[in-house]
């Protein structure tokens, strides 16, 4: 445990925190623009060139807004809940290798904060623990809509965690490791080696469950405006509300990295494109896909959500695991 | 240097906290919380013993305990829901209706 390692880790943590907080803000801008273009609108146009400074304006608004805590709320829990969402989203990034190794001034940098050998499970577990943010927020708010949002959090996240785990199980069986770096190295041989060709069902299930776990639109029942005002976030304002959204966008990027590392070849070189740029392209495509579906597909009802999870996705995932096992045995 | 005794003392401490909770709580759900603490305390002890004796059995026992806890939650919560539907509360004292 030498000093260089500690310093490098701290620098990596700061970089990840800074970049992904900024990306979360920029993500809102991209989301608004993409949604607007798909709906024949222009999106934010007034602040700065093409509305680029809208992020800044929103940030100033969030920081200076009154931090309001309702009278009947359970104060400490109410205050800590958004922090849980943001913190778990960033902790989950600790075990994700973002880029290939590179060398600065003779010092080899591994762009992963902590390479533990159960990295994949760790990421999924911490993302699963992120459900405490909305859950506690809803239960502490003393608001009927909030508690409905919290109940939906509990059932939705809990159900789809099962699907995520089972869908990742089949690739884990093929690779034989839980470390994301091993996953990446397994797919080093170019596009034909990508796991998505061997496990297409697992990939689709993982993406669908990812939508539910990051609370994105076809499944964003936690804060479905038409049904439960703003769900768990009804009583929140200012930066506490903002932290929920930083967490949500950070989770989207985490999921993008996970999907590209497990199924889409990770940070291996893609033809002539260097690996670092290749993985960024994959992550941004998945991010764009999130926005694309938001513009295209309708919400589902809560009962349809549960039906989809337990009667369609989970049996499919189990069958997929069984078939993978049988194929691997012979 | 952290020895096995450190971990065992910690586990015992947590187990005692759980016992206090079991004594104290009237609410069925809060009682479940206390039992979860007890199970976790034992898990720590098992994992520590496994490490210091170089034997994996302890960790496996911890896994089985986690499985037991999970099934306990499923059944316990189902019973709790039924009781709540019938009585409108989940106080332990209201469970004495079978007493003569």
């Amino acid at each position, binding site marked *: 445990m030498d000093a260089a390692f500690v310093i490098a880790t701290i620098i990596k943590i700061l970089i990840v925190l800074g970049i992904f907080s900024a990306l979360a803000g920029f993500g809102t801008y991209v989301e608004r623009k993409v949604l607007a273009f798909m709906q024949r609108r222009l999106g934010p146009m007034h602040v700065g060139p093409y509305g680029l400074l809208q992020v800044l304006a929103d940030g100033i608004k969030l920081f200076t807004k009154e931090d309001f805590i309702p009278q009947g709320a359970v104060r400490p829990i109410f205050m800590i809940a958004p922090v849980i969402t943001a913190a778990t989203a960033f902790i989950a990034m600790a075990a994700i290798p973002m880029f290939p190794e590179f060398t600065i001034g003779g010092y080899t940098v591994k762009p992963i904060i902590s390479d533990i050998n159960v990295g994949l499970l760790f990421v999924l577990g911490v993302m699963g623990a992120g459900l405490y943010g909305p859950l506690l927020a809803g239960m502490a708010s003393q608001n009927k809509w909030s508690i409905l949002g919290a109940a939906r959090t509990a*059932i939705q996240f809990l159900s789809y965690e099962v699907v995520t785990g089972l869908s990742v199980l089949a690739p884990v069986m093929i690779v034989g490791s839980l470390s994301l770096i091993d996953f990446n190295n397994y797919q080093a041989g170019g596009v034909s080696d990508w796991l998505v060709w061997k496990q297409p069902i697992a990939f689709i299930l993982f993406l669908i469950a990812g939508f539910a776990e990051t609370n994105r639109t076809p499944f964003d029942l936690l804060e479905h405006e038409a049904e439960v005002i703003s769900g768990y976030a009804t009583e929140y304002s200012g930066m506490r509300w903002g932290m929920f959204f930083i967490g949500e966008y950070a989770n989207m990027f985490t999921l993008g990295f996970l999907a590209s590392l497990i199924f889409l070849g990770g940070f291996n070189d893609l033809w002539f494109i260097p690996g670092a740029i290749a993985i960024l392209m994959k992550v941004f495509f998945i991010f764009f896909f999130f926005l694309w579906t938001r513009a295209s597909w309708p919400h589902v009802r809560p009962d349809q959500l549960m039906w989809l999870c337990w009667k369609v996705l989970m049996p499919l995932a189990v069958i997929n695991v069984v078939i993978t096992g049988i194929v691997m045995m012979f | 240097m952290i020895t096995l*005794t450190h971990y065992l003392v910690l586990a015992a401490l947590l187990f005692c906290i759980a016992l206090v909770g079991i004594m104290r*709580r009237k609410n069925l759900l809060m009682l*479940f919380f206390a039992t979860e*603490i007890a199970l976790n305390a034992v898990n720590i002890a098992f994992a520590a013993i496994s490490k210091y004796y*170089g034997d994996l059995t302890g960790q496996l026992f911890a*896994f089985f305990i986690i499985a037991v806890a*999970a*099934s306990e939650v499923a059944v316990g919560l189902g019973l709790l829901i039924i009781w709540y539907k019938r009585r409108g509360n989940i106080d332990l004292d209201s469970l004495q209706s079978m007493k003569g």
Partner: protein
Amino acid sequence: MVEAIAFYLFAFLTVAMFTITVMSKNALYAMSALAAGMIFISAFFFLLDADFLGVVQIIVYSGAVMAVYAFGMMFLDTTKDVKEKNPSKKIVFFLSGMVALLLVLIVLSPIVSDKVQALYPISHDIGNAEAVGIVLFTKYLVPFEVAAIMLLVAMIAGIILASKRMDESITLKIDQEIERSKKEQQ
């Protein structure tokens, strides 16, 4: 050194969290403190080289078990205080006796442990997850299957218990039912 700092830090945190769980009058405090304590306990597992166990602790306990409890907590008014009973003197004496006994056993354990032989020794060539898997699927296969069946039984039991009379509303009772339940309570 780092290990000692981490141990004492997390020991303090877990004890504090579980004390809050046991002592707090507010159900919401108790639940969130318990969830935090579960996550801190996984830190001990990471310290003890049981990575897989630590991750399973996070996923199963904090992710699933506590979320289910939270779902059960929707029956309670989380902002109201929880009623408690006062334990009698006997129980307190019994408890302190138990603690004394436990401490004696703990202090004695190194003496006994000299004779303990590792049945399934940890090999450091392979990762923790693989090692656990190998032992679990060879020596402990039957208990593993039994645990699986137990989980299945628990799942079915949970579904049947919770879904019985699901079509009846518990908040919109008709008047007769309210009268009847009042009589039952008397």
